[in-house]
């Protein structure tokens, strides 16, 4: 079983990101469980979403305290919340940022991947300039780094789950898949 936690801000599509990834993974006949941090989501406020992936049925129904990997949709959250809380040693942190992974060594003994999802989202006209919607623009990276499912499944999931700008979202996911930078701390 793999457990992933998503960090984002209300309105960025964090919950949608976890859902699209869940649908993509489920297409490959795995069991998934995806849920938001239960509560009232408010625009701009930090939000969390969770994803469990398993080859068999998932019985644990509690929230995720010790995720295997973390996905951060907004770089400013790195300073605002403790995104690595409970993260298992050796887990991946996949961050939307302009920075290179080695510039984020301070996050700790984790594997770090970065992608400039804002740029990808903006190029593809997703969201507005001030509030780009980065969910698909980070998922390509997540799929590439974590190998949870194939890019084709992700693209199919984007097509079925993202209500508008389908082609642009697919393009963003592909671009993200290509452009992600991976780095293992200490190597």
């Amino acid at each position, binding site marked *: 079983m793999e457990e992933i936690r998503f960090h984002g801000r209300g309105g960025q599509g964090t919950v949608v990101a*976890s*859902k699209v990834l*869940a*649908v993509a993974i*489920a297409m490959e*006949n*795995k*069991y*998934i*469980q*995806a*849920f*938001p941090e*239960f*509560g*009232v989501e408010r625009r701009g406020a930090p939000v969390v979403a969770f994803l469990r992936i398993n080859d068999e*049925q*998932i*019985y*644990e*129904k*509690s*929230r995720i*305290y010790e995720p295997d990997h973390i996905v951060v949709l907004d770089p400013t959250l790195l300073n605002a919340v403790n995104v690595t809380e409970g993260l298992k040693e050796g887990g991946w942190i996949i961050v939307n940022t302009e920075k290179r992974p080695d510039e984020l060594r301070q996050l700790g003994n984790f594997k770090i991947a970065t992608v400039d999802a804002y740029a990808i989202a903006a190029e593809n006209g997703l969201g507005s300039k001030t509030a780009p919607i980065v969910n698909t623009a980070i998922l390509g990276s997540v799929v590439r780094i974590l190998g949870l499912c194939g890019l084709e499944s992700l693209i199919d999931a984007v097509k079925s789950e993202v209500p508008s700008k389908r082609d642009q979202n697919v393009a963003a996911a592909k671009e993200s898949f290509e452009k992600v930078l991976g780095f293992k701390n200490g190597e």
Partner: protein
Amino acid sequence: MRKVLMGNHAISWGALLSRAQVIAAYPITPQTQAVELLAEMCAEGKLDAKFVKVESEHSAMAACIGASAAGARAFTATSGQGLALMHEMLHWAAGARTPVVLANINRAMAPPWTIWTDQNDSLSQRDTGWMQVYCQNNQEVVDSIIQAYRVSEQALLPVMVVLDAFVLSHTLETVDLPDQEQVDAYLPSFDPEFKLDPDNPRTFGGLTAMDGYFELRYKMHQSMEQSKGLWEETGREFGEVFGRPYGLIETYKTADAELLIVTSSTIASTARVAVDRLREKGRKVGLLRIRVFRPFPTEEIREILSSVKKAVVIDRNISYGSSGIFCQEVKAAMYNTANRPPIFGIITGLGGRDVSSTDIINIVERTDSKPLPDSDIIFEGVTIQ
């Protein structure tokens, strides 16, 4: 067909596959996506049903009762305060013997305002004459709604399919959607013997003097008792057709169990993980999940509990001044039996507080040093000092 569905959408799909004909519902968090999808399904013609967008839950149930009495398959969904507002009509639906199916999302009662889960809303409706099924995952939500209509329309008693707020309602899970043709074969269309029909005009629910009321209530109880067999049969045949059998209860590793965890809903799902982890430590622990709470599976519970050394009942609900409600029922079921183990009654997770497998292991291990509970009600996880 495998789909990724949140519990709320599982509700809508359950109603669609059951070919509900009249839906009357009022929105309430955390149920809203269920009615939104149903409204969409009706508007797009995917579901051939009339959606009555009523002005309250009380009216929702009243409309369902009217529709059912007129011979249509009726469905509604609600939660917490909404279910409480329906209370009068829950009695009405059962007393009128209208086989309405209701999905209730367990939401803790206000005040203070809360939207998270516990079971006090549905358990407060225990004595209304509704059958109650507590689901542990979204698959079971879809499957139980279909089974609910089959049992309900034979027993002529309404069914409440219950699921946890957020833990299921807003959680995406992999769900295998039954095939419509197979569902149609499994669940014949609703054709009640007595209905509001100008060709055979009858009055329903007229004033009943002391000569009849008692007998009618006796018959309600009798139907409730008989429905145990219906649930077993319906669940077994569901397994034959769809590959997922169901029963009144579900057991896990109980054959050699010395200690038994008894619980319901999603805590039961998580408890399965706890059982596995405790077994890894060499503990002989088993799990009994109470799926159908009304009718209460007394015989089944007796059979399993009488062979264990200790039982721990975990309740996500409370009867103030008494104890957990499942615990009361389990104790009552065991009282007139010779071999009854000590029963520890645990209250936890009220207002949606998270319950993990680690929490359940802690609960079990805390009973280790005790042959008998210190108290009839043990709070787990509440910050007292």
